[in-house]
């Protein structure tokens, strides 16, 4: 596996705090702005970057991320350009882990082997592919692990103890616990339920367990981060980008800065999380 992911989680462990994992859509609203956002994330406090790969039919996403994908595609984003985004980011940052997240078809059409080679070459550390459950591991998961790219699986409230071992079997990097049955951007569930679920998963794996879906504010991040090894924020960031655009959908003067401000706030949340847990 690429070392960046494990190094980052080891460092966070010694700091005694959970990771802040930030999602944005590659190419939203255009390539250059998107690259600016990506570069601003680590300085604002993001520990791991989830780089969204736009897809025309995002079946597990709510309206905010659907629209982000449409903006990116309209701006000419392709899978090749999303890889290019990562390559440019790596010119100045070789430490922050990058996880590409999206749906399988664009990767399948690009060609699985060619995609994995190119992803490795530009410094991708992991993949999250929503529509590839363990039953489909031969498609991309096993080839990715063989090449040394982490395959991060989603576990959900419907993943019971009987099924968890199958879900965790070929998972590496971290486990992404989806806090609810639903699409991205729904309301955050009760943090106590989430911590119960995180502990349940930890009973089955030594991998870090990160939680996403519904985390929008520093307070959410703090509450979820008390039990989880990482907190994923996506829709809030994507919505911040959408809100900063001009009327015709172009990047506004504050687009990059406003995302950085939001992420700085979320970062204070994860940094306060374990203080709560220790109380």
């Amino acid at each position, binding site marked *: 596996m690429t070392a960046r992911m494990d190094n980052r989680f080891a460092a966070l462990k010694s700091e005694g705090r959970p990771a802040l994992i930030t999602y944005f859509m590659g190419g939203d609203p255009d390539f250059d702005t998107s690259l600016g956002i990506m570069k601003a994330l680590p300085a604002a406090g993001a520990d791991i970057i989830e780089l969204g790969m736009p897809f025309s039919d995002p*079946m*597990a996403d709510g309206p905010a991320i*659907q629209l982000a994908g449409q903006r990116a*595609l309209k701006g000419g984003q392709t899978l090749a350009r999303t890889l290019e985004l990562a390559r440019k980011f790596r010119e100045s940052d070789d430490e922050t882990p990058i996880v590409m997240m999206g749906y399988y078809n664009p*990767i399948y*059409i*690009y060609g699985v082997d060619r995609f994995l080679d190119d992803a490795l070459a530009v410094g991708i550390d992991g993949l999250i592919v929503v529509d590839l459950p363990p*039953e*489909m591991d031969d498609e991309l998961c096993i080839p990715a692990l063989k090449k040394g790219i982490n395959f991060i699986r989603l576990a959900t409230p419907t993943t019971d103890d009987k099924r968890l071992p199958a879900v965790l079997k070929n998972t590496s990097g971290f486990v992404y616990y989806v806090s609810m049955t639903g699409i991205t951007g*729904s309301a955050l569930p009760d943090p106590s339920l989430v911590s119960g679920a995180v502990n349940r998963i930890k009973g089955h794996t030594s991998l870090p367990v990160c939680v996403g879906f519904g985390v929008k504010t520093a307070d959410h991040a703090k509450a979820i981060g008390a039990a989880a090894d990482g907190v994923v924020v996506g829709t809030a960031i994507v919505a911040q980008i959408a809100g900063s655009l001009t009327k015709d959908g172009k990047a506004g003067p504050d687009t990059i800065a406003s995302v950085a401000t939001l992420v700085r706030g979320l970062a204070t949340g994860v940094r306060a999380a374990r203080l709560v847990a220790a109380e």
Partner: protein
Amino acid sequence: MRFSMPSQPRGAKAYEELRVNQTPKPNSFRSGPDEDGRFGIFGGRFVAETLMPLILDLQGEWEKAKNDPAFQKELADLGAHYIGRPSPLYFAERLTEHLGGAKIYFKREELNHTGSHKINNCVGQILLAKRMGKTRIIAETGAGQHGVASATVCARFGFPCVVYMGATDVERQAPNVFRMKLLGAEVKPVTAGSGTLKDAMNEALRDWVTNVENTYYLIGTAAGPHPYPELVRDFQSVIGKEAREQILEAEGRLPDLVVAAVGGGSNAIGIFHPFLDDESVQIVGVEAGGRGLEGVEHCASITAGSPGVLHGNRTYLLQDRDGQILEGHSISAGLDYPGIGPEHSWLHSTGRVEYVPIMDQEALDAFQTLTRLEGIIPALEASHAIAEVIKRAPKMRKDQIIVMNLSGRGDKDIFTVGKILGVEL
């Protein structure tokens, strides 16, 4: 380093290699899918983890129901007394005379309760939903035929029903929208994308992933994640089983040609499947050629698409070089889907079934021809199959036989056709 796009989709290329080198002729064309839901390289279970446990439950329940005599009896009773089965196999005498070639028979699925073959599948799946203890039904619809059939069985069995329908389709299929509402269903217009069937399916999947605990997704076509393609096919195969017996009864032999229109492909697989191992029977699926195959204004997934992954299965899709799904076009809302059921993709790859396109205009002409010659107003979907029959019958001998699935009636389409013909209704 720069990344350029490949000159053609890699999936397609890999597939062509597979096709040449590895697609063996199976012993039977009727034994699929395998336990992972695959028909060759097609099919599978490409869904979010949230849905996986439910899909496995559904598969288990289906295995049990298939072999449960009580389930089969309830299905057969509803078929006979609620749907009106068996549907007639009708010799289209005047159309046959008019074309001057092969004898043409229609399997009259348009005479079913609710006016199309869709009800066969809905009755079967509602019984499964009941067995699974689900309390809420969701469905997607294009032309509204599946939405109406879903709303119908939900009324009959007392389930709340939500139907997702593209906003464009809500507009062009107003009578069916009203029908669904009369039946007590909630119709949710979907504005995402181009507001047609694919977008309705995305939205239904989003609902399902949110309400997975109590909700049953009643998919209308032989596509989606395993076991849907298999169970929808099995519920629709009653069409072919009856047709095969009926033609043997009427003519004392099997037909030379079986024809059906293909959107997602449930009426087609329903009539094809029982004939697949009859070597002497040629089988043709008719795709929507729309305004022509050169551009993107068609829905001919097999004729002009390439293999990809969408809505839970690998199958032929209309997509660009980046794997983004394209919006199709067809005069018929029921064929307006950029994919096709995975079993059809496999039947194409093995060469067992031939898939051909029919253009909007040809379908429209066939619609009028049949109406005038036989006194049957066909659905625009079925009109595509009629157009292919009109092309082929004159080239066949008079002692040859064609069986075509007349999958739906055209009452719902009179507004669309009227508009094109310049008639104010």
